[in-house]
C-alpha cells in the first residue's frame, strides 16, 4: 500500500459568523477590527485537511503536514480548535492572512516552506489545498504552488480522490455546468485544490489534540516573519446589502415572498 507525505496548504480567515467591513488603512486595504475578530481555518483548507487526514489514516505510514501562512498569534488561536480534529505537523509562516495579498507571493512562501520540509520525498508528495479561499478567492494559489514545486499533475475543484493499490490516483473534479470529470494519473507528486470533498468535519479528539500540541507550539515559536506584496486596489467594498427589518402582520406568504424577491432585485 502506498505511503504519502501529504502537505496541506491552509490559512485562517475571520470567523464567517462575524460582520466584516473592509476599510483602507495606511498599509492598504484591511478589515475593520481585524485583530479583534476571531479566526477559523479557511473552510476550503479545512476540507483539504480532513481529506488528507482520512487518506493518511487509510494508508498507514503516511504523514500530514499543515503549511500555514498567517499572523502567528491568530494561527495559534485557531490551532486551539483545529488541533483536536486530525493529526498533523504544523509548518508555520508568520505572514498576513488578510486576503488582501498578492497570490503569487503567497504561493512563493508556501512553496518555499514545503521545499524546506526535512525529509521531503517528491515520489510520495501530495500537495493539498482549497481551490478557493473564504478571504479572497483568487483561485490560482494552489496552481502556482505546484508550478514552483515543479509538479505538473494538478487537479482543481476536487471532490474525491481514490488511491489504487499501485499508487495510481483517480480524481473526481468539478467542471462547468454542474458536472464532474474523472481523471487519473500514475501517482505522486500531484497538487489537489479541493472543493468540498465528501467528509464531515471530524469530531474533537483530545488525544489527537494532546499529541499535536506538543509539536504545534515549537512550530509556532520557530515561525519566521515573511512579507507578501500588497496589490493595488482601486476600491474595496462589500456587496451592497442593507438589513431591513419590518414587522408585517397581515401579509400572506405569497405577498411576503414577492416583496423579498423585489427587494433582492433592488440590491
Amino acid at each position, binding site marked *: 500500500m502506498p505511503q504519502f507525505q501529504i502537505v496541506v496548504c491552509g490559512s485562517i480567515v475571520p*470567523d464567517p*459568523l462575524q460582520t466584516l467591513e473592509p476599510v483602507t488603512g495606511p498599509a492598504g486595504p484591511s478589515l475593520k477590527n481585524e485583530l479583534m475578530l476571531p479566526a477559523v481555518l479557511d473552510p476550503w483548507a479545512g476540507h483539504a485537511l480532513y481529506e488528507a487526514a482520512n487518506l493518511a489514516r487509510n494508508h498507514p505510514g503516511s504523514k500530514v503536514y499543515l503549511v500555514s501562512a498567517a499572523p502567528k498569534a491568530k494561527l495559534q*488561536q485557531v490551532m*486551539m480548535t483545529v488541533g483536536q480534529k486530525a493529526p498533523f505537523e504544523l509548518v508555520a509562516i508568520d505572514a498576513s492572512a488578510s486576503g488582501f495579498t498578492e497570490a503569487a507571493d503567497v504561493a512563493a512562501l508556501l512553496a518555499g516552506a514545503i521545499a524546506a520540509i526535512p525529509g521531503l520525498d517528491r515520489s510520495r508528495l501530495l500537495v493539498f489545498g482549497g481551490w478557493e479561499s473564504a478571504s479572497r478567492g483568487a483561485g490560482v494559489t494552489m496552481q502556482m504552488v505546484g508550478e514552483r514545486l515543479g509538479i505538473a499533475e494538478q487537479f482543481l475543484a476536487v471532490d474525491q480522490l481514490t488511491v489504487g493499490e499501485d499508487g495510481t490516483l483517480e480524481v473526481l473534479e468539478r467542471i462547468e455546468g454542474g458536472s464532474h470529470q474523472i481523471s487519473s494519473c500514475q501517482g505522486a507528486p500531484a497538487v489537489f485544490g479541493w472543493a468540498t470533498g465528501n467528509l464531515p468535519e471530524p469530531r*474533537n479528539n483530545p488525544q489527537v489534540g494532546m499529541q499535536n500540541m506538543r509539536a504545534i507550539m515549537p512550530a509556532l515559536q520557530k515561525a519566521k516573519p515573511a512579507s507578501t506584496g500588497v496589490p493595488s486596489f482601486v476600491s474595496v467594498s462589500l456587496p451592497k446589502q442593507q438589513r431591513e427589518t419590518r414587522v408585517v402582520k397581515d401579509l400572506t406568504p405569497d405577498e411576503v415572498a414577492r416583496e423579498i424577491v423585489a427587494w433582492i432585485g433592488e440590491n
Partner: protein
Amino acid sequence: MEPERQQMDVDIVCVGFGPAAGGFLTTLSRGLAAGDGAPALESIVAPGMPPQVICYERSDDVGFGVSGIVTRARGIRATFPDLDPAAIPMAAPVREEKVIYLLDPVGASRRSIGLRAIDSLIRSFRFGLPLDHGAIELPYTPEFLRKHGGMVMSIGQFNQWVGSQLMASGAVQVWPGTPVAQALIEDGKIAGVRLVDQGVEKDGAPGPGFLPGMDIRAALTVVADGPVGAVSRQIDAELGVPQGYQRRDWAVGCKFVIDLPESCNLEPGTVFHTLGYPEPEIFGFFYVHPERVASAGIFVPSWFTSPVRTSYRYLQHFLLHPFFWRYVQGGRLRSWGAKSLQESGRRGEPFLAGDGYARIGEGSGSTNVLTGSGVDEAWTTGTQLAEAVLELLREGRSFTRANLESTYVARRRRSWVEKEGRIAEKARDGFQRGFLTGLAGMALSGFTKGIFTMPARVEEPYETIPTPYEYYRGRISDHEIAKIREQCAARCIPLHDALMERAGWPAIEYDGQLLVSHQDALLMGGKVQAPPGYADHVVFIDPALCKTCGSPVCVEICSAEAITPGPDGVPVFDREKCVHCGACLWNCTRALPDDSGRTNVEFRAGAGGLHSVEN
C-alpha cells in the same frame, strides 16, 4: 449499555475557561517553568515531562465570553503589575464614573408609592436639581461601588489576550469547543472528567459518527464552569453542600456592544451605573470603550417578580431613555450577549475543595454582590488555587481535601475576596421586600461593613413568581390576558411584547441598525450557532410538570428566544439559537417534587453559542 470510552491521563484538568481559569492557568504556567525556561516540576502521568495541564472550554473560542465589565482589576494587576490597558483591545482606564437615577419617561414602569413620591419630588424641584434628560446624577457614589483606578474591558477580548499568552507559554493547553459533561466521582473523590458525547441525536442517542465522550483522568480537577455549570451542579448534588448554602439570588445580564455615532462625545473610560428604569428592580450600565464603542446593558434579577420578564426588550427601552438615546441615536448594534449571574455571593459558596478537586470563580461563590464585582474576584481565586497547587506539587503532596483546604482555602479565607465577600453576604436581602428597602439594605451593609443588614427571607425564584393574572391585576383584565395568551400560543411566541405593550410600554420602532428584532440580533455581530452532532443541553425533565405550569417564565426570559411555547404547554427548545445564558435554569416555576430545590429544567453541558468576542 454503556459504550466503551477512550481514556486519557493528565495531571490537572480544568473545566471552563473564564477569568478564574485565566488567573489559575496564568499563575500555574509561570510556576511550572524554572527561570531558564526548563520544567520546574515533573508530571506524574508522563514522567520526564512537565505536568500535563489541560483546560476544556465549552464555547467555540476562548474569547466567546459574554460580559463587558468595569473592574478595579486589583487581582488582575497583581498578576500583571505592568499591565497597560492599551494592550487589550476595548480596554480603557476608568476616567469618569457616575451613578444615575433614571426617571420613567413613558409612565409604564411599575413603581411603588414611595418611588412615585420620590419621582414627583424630583420633577417638582427640577429647576433646582441637576435634572438632565430625565435623569439625575446621584451627588455621591459610595466608596464600595466605585471602580476608580480600574478599567472597562470586554471579557471576550481579555480572554483572548490571556489565552494567547497561555498557549504561547506552552505550559498548558486550552481547548475550546469541548464541553465537559460531568465529573468522574469515585468513592467520594473526583478522578477527572468525562467529555460530552459527539455524534449523537438531539436526545443523546448515538447517531452517525458516534464518539463517546472521552474520560480525562487527573489527580486534580479544577472546576471553573461558572454560575450554571453542569459539573458544579453535579458535584453539589452528589457530594453535598455546606450548611447554610443557598443559591436563590440570580440575575440575567443582557448587553449590547454599540458603535456610537460620530456625534457622541463620551470619552473612553466613562462609566454610568443606573437605577430606576426601565423597572425599579432593573439596574443598568453603560461603559465607553476606545474608538467610539460602548457596552450598554441591564440586569434582570430574580427578585423582579414579573412573570413575563425579558431582558432583551427591557434593554431596548433602557437605550431609548432620553439620557442614553442622545448618545446612541444613530449608532449601530455591533453585537450583543447575555449571561446569568449568581448573585447569592458568598452564601452560594459550595465546598471549595474536596479529594481531587477544587472550585474557583463565580461558581465558587466569589462574586461580590455589594460592589457589583465578579471578574476580579474570580481571577483572584484562580491565582490563589494556582499558588496552592504549586506549593503542593513542589512538596510532593497529593490533592486531598485536607491539603487543598490548608493551602487553597486558607489563602482564600485570608484574602480580600473573603473579607469583602462577608461584608456583602446579606447586602441584597432587602430587595426581597422592595426596591427602596433593598437600596437601604445595600447602604446599611456597605456603610457598616456588613455589621448591620436588612433582614429578609430570601425565597427560591420559583416561589415568588406570580401568574400573569396576578401580576397585571388592576391593569389588564383576566379575560384580556387569557385572549393574549391564546394568541401568543397560537403563534408560538412569548407573551412579554403583547402584555408589556398592553400595560403601556411603547412598541419598539425598529431602525434596522441599533433597534432590531430579537431574532435579527441573533444574526448580528458574531451570530449564534450550534455544531451538529451534540445533544440538546436544555431538557424539560418531566413534560407533565410543564403542562401544569401555565406561566412558562423560561419562555419569557430566554435571552435568544431559543425556548418557545410548544404543544400541550411543553416548551420547545431550539439548540441553534441558544446563547447558553442559563436563565431557563433559575426561571422555571416548577420545582421537582423531590425537595431537592431543583426545577424542571435541566441545563446540561452543551456546545455552540454566540460567536462574539466583543462581549
